[in-house]
């Protein structure tokens, strides 16, 4: 005990041990680290996409209407869900659990809306003939390069893989939030914050996916 008593004289500096240097608990720090790691998975896919896109003739099949308008509505849903998540965390920090739960449910609603719209869009592209391994027949002729090089079927591969992985993250995020909402009375404020971190991260990933996959593939009629 005497050694412990003497330790009281130590300056309680952030990095001297015995405290949380970032003032965050294990779980929050763990979530940050997971986000760092997961963002590298997405980076790998997006850099791979850029690499393949740069070395192929790439189709630009999305017309402003309906594709971009539709995907902008999806983006709007996801952004709204981040906003409602901010309100949820804010309500939770004031200790207002009932409000926090309502805002989390709102977040789940917008997340699911995003998922439903996204699946409608997948279905639309699928029925047009887009596959992970091939393009619709009319795209092949429409987006061929002037020298006759055919557009790359990797369009479908990258589209379905990257948006699919993101969709999976939104889906797991919605389940995660549902669990948080259900167990809210037993959870601490920090747990709500952590779920918010994950949700904002998923939203942020979309802010890279949307311009790289959609906006850069707008049909601006140069063909």
């Amino acid at each position, binding site marked *: 005990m005497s050694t412990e008593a003497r330790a009281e004289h130590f300056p309680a500096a952030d990095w001297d*041990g015995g405290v949380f240097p970032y003032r965050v608990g294990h779980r929050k720090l763990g979530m940050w680290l997971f986000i760092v790691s997961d963002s590298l*998975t997405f980076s790998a896919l997006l850099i791979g996409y850029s690499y393949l896109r740069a070395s192929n003739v790439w189709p630009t099949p999305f017309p402003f209407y309906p594709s971009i308008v539709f995907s902008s509505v999806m983006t709007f849903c996801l952004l709204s869900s981040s906003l409602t998540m901010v309100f949820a965390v804010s309500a939770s920090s004031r200790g207002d659990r009932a409000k926090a739960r309502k805002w989390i449910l709102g977040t789940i609603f917008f997340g699911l809306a995003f998922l439903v719209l996204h699946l409608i869009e997948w279905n639309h592209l699928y029925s047009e003939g887009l596959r992970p391994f091939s393009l619709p027949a009319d795209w092949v002729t429409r987006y061929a390069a002037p020298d006759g090089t055919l557009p790359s079927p990797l369009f479908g591969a990258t589209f379905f893989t990257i948006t699919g992985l993101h969709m999976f993250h939104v889906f797991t995020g919605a389940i995660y939030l549902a669990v948080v909402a259900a167990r809210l009375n037993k959870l601490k404020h920090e747990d709500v914050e952590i779920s918010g971190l994950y949700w904002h991260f998923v939203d942020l990933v979309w802010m890279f996916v949307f311009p790289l996959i959609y906006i850069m593939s707008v049909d601006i009629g140069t063909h």
Partner: protein
Amino acid sequence: MSGETHEAVHRHPAPTGFIRKYIFSLDHKVIGIQYIMLALVAVLVGMTMSVLMRMNLSWPGTNWPILGTLFPGGAPDGMMTPEFYLSLVTMHGTIMVFFVLTTAPQGGFGNYFLPIQIGAEDMAFPVLNMLSFWVTLVGFIVILSAIFFSGADSTVGPIGGWTGYAPLSALPNAGPGQGMGMNLWIISIAIFCVGSLLGALNFITTLLNMRTRGMSLMRMPLTCWAWFTTAVLALLSFPVLLGGGILLLLDRLAGTSFFIPGGLYLSGILSGTDERFPLHTGGSPILWQHLFWFFGHPEVYIAILPGMGATSHILSTFARKPVFGYRAMVFAIFAIGLLGFFVWGHHMFISGMSPYSAMTFSILTLSIGVPSAVKTFNWLGTLWGGRIRFTTAMLFAIGFVSLFVAGGITGLVLGQTSLDLPMHDTYFVTAHFHLVMGVASIFGMFAATYFWFPKMFGRLMNESLGKFHFWITFIGVYCIFVPMHTMGIVGMPRRFAQFTEYEYLKTLHPLVVFVSIAAIATVLAQIVFYFNLLWSIFKGKRAGENPWDATTLEWTTASPPPHDNFAGHLPVVYRGPYEFAVPGAANDFVMQTEPEVILQAVGSGREGTSGNGHDGHRH
């Protein structure tokens, strides 16, 4: 915010039932031993495969009836087919890199000793820790199953090597073993990635958040710095391999072409002209190489950094001197880790990359020589003038330094594009990476085993057997890998099942036989190690708390430590980790937990005796 300090966080009671205590344990010490046991099993599989390969290389045409019985497809009449040999190359590499060199140093020793050395009662996420082990074990079972699911193809797994280069790996009918065997290989690696991620974020959180009072960053043992850096590397590199693995699996299962270029012929069929080989076009095999080696190079450091940490720790302890240049050692670890992310291209010099990129990668690669040399000279500086105790652990630590230099010096050769181009596909590279990444890391782990065994099991390992094991292994690995450099310079290609067809390699045959005999002798010496390990658990000499007169926290608690490591109260740290030969002190070592007061009474002659200084990191 609740939980500003550690008290009352993660206190789980000691389990009583056998299953909770030894199987699905949440105790980082049990999990660490589970990881080490996994590595001990995996290394037997990998070693057996290497012996089979050596036999095929040095005694071509000999019948090995046992082989014929075990693998009637792969070795009809006891003679290995070339495909079987290639699958052995793949599985040996994969199992050794992932399930031995990544598992034992980090998952095993890191898990066991990182929390104790920083004065924590467990890891930050015990459940995650348990999961990461079981996920890794599932990965190992899946990779083993590739052996059996490839049986129909007369191989024991895929044939593309541990790097899984596309398009060979991306096309299910590109060769024997590339069907279900390759799928299982990818799935196993993906599972392993997940396990490593869980482990890595656990390690980082534990080290940042759970250091006990007084354990500032600059008072941590160098082992902790090494495990921490390794965890950061794993956190940042495994997700990239995971991403690459997802794409590779989609190429095989969903018909995409991420890594498959157009215009490929397979068994005489042009891609897209026959339903047996549907159209693939536009993909890039080089993209796979980029994604793989962006992971693959940090992976090399994931394997060796813990060995460096253990070596620094053990050299200091048995030279009875502080680590020479503690701060420089810390920065060198970080510099190696950081540079490791920008040199992956040196594995791809022969891929046809732009000479400008190659030069950039080359310069960055050679610059890793600087922190590596800092470490080497600091190890020598630590030994210089020390009163060295030649225990087995010390011998292996010195062996590590020797092997690290011997293997690292050829890295400077291969890091130069002009020299790499002719040497890349020869035994020179095989010799280089086996010495520096394989054997050196293993020596670090041998040193760690002999050093920490008394803490883990309360008994010492037998020193005579240990020294016998050391000398045979040390001489053995040099006899194996030094001749391989010569073979490589002569131009003997890697991954060839036999060399009987090549006139210019015939003169090398005696050397090939010599290497095989050395390999078999070295493998047999490991029986001594396994015996020593098992025997010492039950019959070894009782160790006591601190058999090595060491200074760090793990030696302040019982051997083996109790469930919560420090029997209910956390230690408080007053000084750096390597205070040996402190002038005026009663013993030649001062424990980290010894308060300032004692030394003030002795006198103020201690300034500058410790390489790390006692003030640490103050702000």
